[in-house]
């Protein structure tokens, strides 16, 4: 529904720009979700692009489900990336073990950063939106400092850290894309988060505290503990996203690492995916596809600026928000009708 509305509005924009909307939109999908040959496969690139989106999206889902509107994925991701760049280059370890150690380190560091934002809210009552924005900013500046000074690789024009050891790099399945182990980890994370939230007792505690704090308190659930646990997991997932970006895509951190906005995009993914892990999986791939298609299809083939892809995503978020509103109105209407029927 939201997606259709977004596409329709985008079509109007395209018409205004004197391009055929059908051609443009079909070119987005054609270039995002097709495969011409194994080593020139667009869909693999889409999957690779979707990997960090899915992880930061999951991070937002876990935080939202514990009742904390954390938007600190960006910063937690930066810390994960720093950990990866550091251990990847300065701590020599054997193959495989190297990437495992990096992942665990990034999860712990990102998790603690998330936990800290939760702690600020619960113990000191600091609004999580503000604290996570500031914490993100701090992490971004830290990364820029490290990249420019202590961890700078050489004296090139743009600052970047030295390339990580090959032992720390993630396997790539299809040559020519970055589609590899990272995607598998992300899919695995989707499944884990789903089981955690919906099938485990701890996840139950967290969902109840998030949805109905008074109900949880009444039932004897320790909401604060549940929320802090949620924030740790949330931060850990974002940290992992940062580590995978380093281990599987860039192999280093650089000056512009924060400009990709992958952390903030995770919020869009979580909201568009209706704050559900499976939704995050679908929307993550879909958004990556639109981005990919906008770049390849629109810009290269039709000469339409790729920002249009971003516009489409923006519209869709708007419509998802509106949809919730419609649902609410519809729901109330339905309920009062239902009641009237019963009275009659």
């Amino acid at each position, binding site marked *: 529904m939201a997606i259709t509305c977004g596409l329709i509005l985008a079509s109007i924009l395209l018409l205004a720009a004197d391009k055929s909307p059908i051609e443009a939109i079909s070119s987005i999908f054609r270039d995002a979700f097709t495969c011409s040959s194994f080593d020139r496969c667009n869909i693999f690139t889409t999957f690779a692009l979707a990997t960090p989106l899915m992880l930061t999206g999951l991070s937002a889902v876990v935080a939202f489900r514990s009742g904390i509107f954390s938007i600190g994925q960006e910063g937690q991701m930066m810390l994960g990336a720093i950990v990866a760049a550091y251990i990847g280059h300065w701590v020599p370890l054997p193959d495989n073990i190297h990437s495992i150690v990096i992942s665990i380190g990034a999860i712990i560091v990102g998790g603690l950063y998330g936990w800290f934002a939760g702690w600020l809210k619960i113990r000191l009552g600091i609004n999580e939106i503000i604290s996570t924005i500031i914490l993100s900013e701090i992490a971004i500046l830290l990364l820029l400092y490290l990249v420019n000074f202590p961890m700078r690789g050489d004296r090139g024009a743009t600052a970047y850290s030295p390339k990580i050891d090959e032992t720390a790099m993630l396997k790539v399945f299809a040559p020519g894309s970055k589609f590899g182990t990272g995607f598998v980890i992300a899919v695995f994370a989707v499944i884990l988060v789903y089981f955690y939230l919906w099938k485990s007792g701890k996840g139950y505690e967290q969902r109840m505290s998030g949805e109905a704090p008074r*109900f949880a308190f009444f039932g004897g659930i320790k909401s604060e503990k549940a929320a802090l646990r949620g924030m740790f997991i949330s931060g850990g997932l974002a940290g992992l996203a940062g580590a995978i970006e380093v281990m599987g895509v860039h192999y280093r951190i650089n000056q512009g690492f924060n400009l990709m906005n992958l952390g903030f995009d995770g919020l869009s993914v979580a909201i568009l995916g209706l704050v559900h892990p499976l939704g995050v999986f679908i929307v993550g791939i879909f958004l990556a596809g639109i981005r990919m298609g906008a770049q390849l299809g629109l810009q290269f083939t039709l000469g339409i600026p790729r920002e249009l892809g971003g516009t489409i995503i923006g519209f869709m978020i708007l419509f998802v928000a509106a949809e919730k509103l419609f649902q609410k109105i519809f729901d109330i209407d339905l309920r009062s009708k239902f*009641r009237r029927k*019963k009275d009659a």
Partner: protein
Amino acid sequence: MKYILETKKISKYFESSNVQANDDVDIKLSKGEIHAVIGENGAGKTTLMNILYGLVSPDSGEIFIEGVEKEINHPNKAINLGIGMVHQHFKLVPSYSVAENITLGMEPRKNKFFLDKKEESKSVKELSNKMGLEIDPDSLIKNLSVGMQQRVEILKVLHRNAEILIFDEPTAVLTPQEVRELLKIVKSLAKKGKTILFITHKLGEVMEVADTVTVMRQGSVVGTKKVKDTNVNELASMMVGRDINFVRIGNPNKPGEVVLSVEDLMVLNEVGVEAVKGVSFEVRRNQIVGIAGVSGNGQNELVEAIVGMKNIEYGNLTFYGDNINKLNVGKRRDLGMAHIPEDRIETGLNMGANLEDNIVLTGYKTDQFSKFGFLLKKEMQKFSKDIIERFSVASAVPGEGVSMLSGGNMQKVVLGRELSGNPELVIANQPTRGLDVGSIEFVHKTLINNRDNGSAIILVSVELEEIFNLSDVVVVMFDGLISGIVKPEEVTLEEIGLLMAGQPIDEDKLIQYKEMGV
């Protein structure tokens, strides 16, 4: 004679709760009098005031101001007509000064654009002097006591030139000294020609301050009396007196061992005022202790302190001889406490979750529903079906949400969850509020069943009928204290009514809390 305010046949029906809140209400106010409106909870007092203040529009009926019919469809209209409301919950900006709060929305200005702070402060000072309500216009609201804040509320209303002042349960939030102070203020305002409409359920205050009193019951006016022509006993029986359906259900068992003993308990409410001021009682196995009282006399705080949702300021809670003051909600539940909360929408249930998630709240950690930290979906579904059957929760479907259920069915879900584990102690707070007759009967039967199976039950209710029919012993609360412990078969309804209004009754009928099981 011309009345400053008169209503004729005001009626209001609330479809959502199926309540006739006002039914042909006539009320007449003469200029300069203090007119009290009294009645139990749900008698329709607040609805009537909201209609007069333009917050609720009546279905039918007319309002006359100084003999002229007026339509009041918005609070602004009421204010223009000289009607002001002193709300029970103050509507003040804590970080603003007294003067800023009083003139908010009508600030004096210099050159049309700049605020004139001096003039603001001066006008407030003048007003407070004129009305005999002393206050420093420049102090900040957040630094004032509750009593002083109320004074600001009154001044705010006076500043808008109100001639008729509506006080909605003004003493509920005050300390005894502040109450005395307020009553003095009310009297002096009346002397200065203002007309006061005073809503309360405290008979003592009515006798002290009012000239005229109107008693409401179940949406209708029972009668209007001059205070000098009536007495507390008459008012109490007017308030509660009605045909009550007495179907006392006998208790086949003698009360057993003491399960919970409450000793000298003191609890604060959310604004830090003592709500429970030293309460002691006991409840035993096979016994229902009813806690009667007009709502807002400390019952909710008492319940929340017992179940662990509120901290105890002073006193002791003992469960089978062990002190449980320090245990949290979960630990107390593990001991076998069950709680049927007053508010089932936000507290008792999670409207956003499905039936299983709601039902498993108290048992998700037990072996029955979890294995290695994972929830056993099949067991949860089985249990849901079981509850649907045993508690005949019509229209509930496992896997679906609970928000579409009727109030009665929601309450059955709560009962099913709380009572199915054969709890040691059940605390039921207003368990039948808003339910239809059939559901009420079901709730009563369930509680009786649990009592006969050995549970100790604390039943808090503002419904006297319910208290009378179910309780083995009745504890009456007034103003945070126990005004009397009685056996329901030994007292009349009027006597309970007197205790509820804080008036004494025959000493011989009262029992000591240590004798509650005898």
